[in-house]
C-alpha cells in the first residue's frame, strides 16, 4: 500500500507541470471561443453602424437630388401647360360654345372623381342637386 502511494506521489511530482499546462489549456479552450465570438460580434456591430451611417447619408443625398429634379420637371410641366393653353385659346374655334347639357354632364362626371370630391364648385353642385 505504501509502495503504491509513493509511486503515485512520484508520478504526481513528475507530471505536475504538464497537469498544470493541461488544465490551463482546458480553461483557454472553454473561454476563448466565447470571448472571440463576443469580440467578433462587437466588431461586426461597429462595422454595421459605420456602413449604415454611410448608406443613410447616400440615401439622403439621392432623395434630395431626385426630389429636386422632380420639382424642376413639374415646374417645366406647369409652364408647358400655360404655353399650351395660350395656343389652344388662340386657335380658331376655341371660343365656340359648348352645349350646356354637355358642360353639365362633364362637370358632374368630374365631380364624381376623388380628385374633385372636395372642390368648392363640386360641393356647391352637390348642395344644389339635393
Amino acid at each position, binding site marked *: 500500500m505504501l509502495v503504491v502511494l509513493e509511486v503515485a506521489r512520484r508520478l504526481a511530482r513528475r507530471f505536475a507541470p504538464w497537469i498544470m499546462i493541461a488544465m490551463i489549456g482546458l480553461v483557454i479552450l472553454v473561454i476563448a471561443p466565447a470571448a472571440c465570438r463576443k469580440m467578433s460580434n462587437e466588431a*461586426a456591430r461597429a462595422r454595421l453602424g459605420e456602413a449604415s451611417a454611410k448608406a443613410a447619408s447616400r*440615401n*439622403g443625398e439621392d432623395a434630395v437630388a431626385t426630389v429636386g429634379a422632380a420639382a424642376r420637371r413639374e415646374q417645366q410641366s406647369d409652364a*408647358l401647360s400655360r404655353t399650351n393653353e395660350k395656343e389652344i385659346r388662340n386657335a380658331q374655334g376655341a*371660343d*365656340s360654345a359648348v352645349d350646356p347639357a354637355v358642360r353639365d354632364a*362633364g362637370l358632374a362626371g368630374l365631380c364624381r372623381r376623388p380628385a374633385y370630391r372636395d372642390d368648392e364648385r*363640386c360641393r356647391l353642385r352637390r348642395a344644389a342637386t339635393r
Partner: protein
Amino acid sequence: MSGAGCAALLPVEWRGGVIPAPLPEGITVGDWVAFADAQTGKLDEANGRTRDAIGIVERCEARDTEAVNKARRGWLRRLVG
C-alpha cells in the same frame, strides 16, 4: 436593417398626391381642350413622382442590404474586397 426607413425619405407633400388641374369653366371648346391638356400635364407629374418614389426606395433598400452584407463579411473577404 431591412430598408424600413426608406419610405421616410419621400417628401411629405407627395403623400397627398398631385393636385389636379382646376375644374374648367367649360363654356367654350377652348376651356375643355385646355383643361384636358393641363390634366395630362398633371398625369405626367404624378407618373414622374411614382417612378421617383419607387426609385428612391429601391436604391435605399439596395444600399442598406449592401451595408449589412459588408458588415457580415469575414475578415479575409473584407481584406480582399
